[in-house]
């Protein structure tokens, strides 16, 4: 039991060495698996595009000019122009912020609410556990994308509601995971020690148990971000949330879809590729993070 206490509640000296070990492990994971390094690189590119997108785009994403409509990719318009003569490259770049914002906000909300509900359920059990469990089961009883469609249709067709709907369908994963992780540690040595030294339930939950839930949660967050981007883009593909002319990847693919059968492939291809690359990046990042926080489960 002493060993558990030492590892789970590190003192300051142990923390610096733990941090040093973490950095060395990070370096190892990066060099060992070039794919993870690539994922981190791509992730940085997406973050830069999201923050500085409006300044990086060579043209105004909303400026229309019928004289240059539907031009294939050229030196001046790298990704070509769309049916209104807007520059596809600029639109793809500018859309990054909105797409990432929707996904990040939704996953953050799902994480905060879901892990709080799950951690409380796992720690206290009883009625709270049963109610949370029922709620989560009910959400999971729906095909999740269809539930998101229903929520947006009922609550109103706005971007905010896309975010809420995406958050709700992501919530069960966090609630279940937090519940399981808290539940198995509820009576472990370091919790009993904390309880004996006079910590209240909520304090133990917040400072002793919750930090232990975080590492697997980080992996889940990264994998979920990719899925959240796909869902949000899918919703705007079927005409929910984002309205034209706002640049967003899903709606750009939807608009480009009308031109696929007549051979103007660049309208749908480039936003679609951006979407795919973003999801791919988050999935790879998730695998890399798993290697980082959970070396045993490496594949």
């Amino acid at each position, binding site marked *: 039991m002493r060993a558990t206490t030492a590892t789970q509640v590190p003192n300051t000296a142990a923390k610096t060495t733990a941090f040093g070990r973490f950095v060395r492990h990070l370096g190892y994971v990066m060099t060992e698996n070039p794919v993870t390094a690539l994922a981190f690189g791509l992730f940085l590119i997406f973050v830069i595009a999201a923050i500085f997108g409006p300044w990086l785009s060579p043209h105004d994403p909303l400026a229309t000019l019928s004289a240059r409509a539907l031009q294939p990719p050229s030196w001046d318009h790298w990704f070509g122009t769309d049916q209104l003569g807007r520059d596809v490259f600029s639109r793809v770049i500018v859309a990054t912020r909105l797409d990432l914002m929707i996904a990040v906000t939704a996953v953050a909300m799902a994480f905060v609410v879901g892990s709080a509900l799950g951690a409380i359920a796992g720690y206290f059990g009883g009625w709270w556990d049963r109610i949370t469990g029922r709620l989560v089961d009910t959400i999971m009883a*729906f095909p999740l994308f269809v539930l998101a469609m*229903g929520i947006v*249709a009922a609550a109103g067709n706005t971007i905010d509601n896309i975010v809420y709907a995406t958050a709700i369908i992501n919530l069960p994963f966090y609630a279940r995971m937090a519940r399981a992780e808290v539940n198995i540690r509820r009576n472990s040595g370091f919790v009993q020690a904390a309880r004996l030294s006079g910590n209240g339930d909520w304090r133990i939950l917040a400072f002793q148990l919750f930090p232990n839930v975080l590492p697997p949660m980080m992996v889940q967050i990264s994998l979920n971000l990719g899925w959240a981007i796909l869902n949000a883009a*899918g919703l705007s593909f*079927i005409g929910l949330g984002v309205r034209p002319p706002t640049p967003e990847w899903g709606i750009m693919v939807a608009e480009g879809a009308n031109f696929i059968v007549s051979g103007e492939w660049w309208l749908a291809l480039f936003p*679609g590729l951006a979407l795919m690359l973003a999801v791919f990046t988050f999935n790879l990042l998730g695998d890399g993070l798993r290697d980082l926080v959970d070396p045993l489960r490496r594949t």
Partner: protein
Amino acid sequence: MMNTSGRTRMIAYRLLQAIPAIIGIVIVSFILTRALPGDPAAYFAGPAASSESIEQIRRTMGLDQPLPVQFLAYVKDLVTGDLGHSISTGQPVLTELGARLPASLELTGFALLFSMAVALPLGILAASRPNSWVDHLCRFVVTAGVSLPVFFTGLALVYLFYYLLGWAPSPMGRIDILYLSPPKITGFYVIDSLLAGDLETARAALAQLILPAITLGLFTLAPIARMTRAAMIQILEGEFVRTARAAGLSRRSMLYTYALRNAILPVITTLGMVFSFTLGANVLVEKVFAWPGIGSWAVEALVVSDYAAVQGFVLAMALLFVTINLVIDILYTLIDPRLGMES
């Protein structure tokens, strides 16, 4: 045989377990119908309605009653199959859903056949030859499969096989306008036209079906392949496999007769999650290929704010999903060789 009663009891228990899920679904869909933006009565009365006619509709819809009474009325309507009327067509929602469901089921069924036919051998080969090219291919397919937006794959296939190569017919619906739809027996065009002995129509229907089915299949392939690979790796490390190998069983009979039969169980369990994604992706694929199923119908209803139709669709999909999960679990109980040995 020796333990049929145990299995029956497990199946009965599983059926009982579906009841809370169904209750939850009904409550959520009730909340969704009452959460319409603004006043549902004003919405259903239409934009030109006077305040008296809104009041009238409020009374006929029972919206002036307390919520529990409204809920009971809602449940009563559901039990009698009344999901309301679609505003755009004026038809009962249930009739519309029933008319379009076969198209969706045909698409989903073919997609799953395709993804099973590819994913199971891929997973088995990857597991039996770790770090070979098959294993790498499997890993690539699994990662790419979860990253590809299904509507994007669909468009890419349309561009390649319709526009560039000209192999596929135009991505518009279930059958080319040159052909008449076959007489309705099962509602599945390919099967119906085969039953009617009309090979030409069957070929045309199949040609329309192939691209959307592959699109949806590529999407469901990844989780099945990953699960098959993981389950097979675990089984192949087992002692009974080593014994079988030591006893001189051929590689083929060991892989397919002994290992696969055990590995298929976890694969079947993941099918539930796969269906959750498939039913959602179905909507997107139907939209891309103008496939006249319930998904594209719901999307059209969304565009014209036909809420009764959308909510009927969400409810129908959820009930379908619960039923599928139930069938999967019962199937699991029936084929699990360990059950029935224990007692």
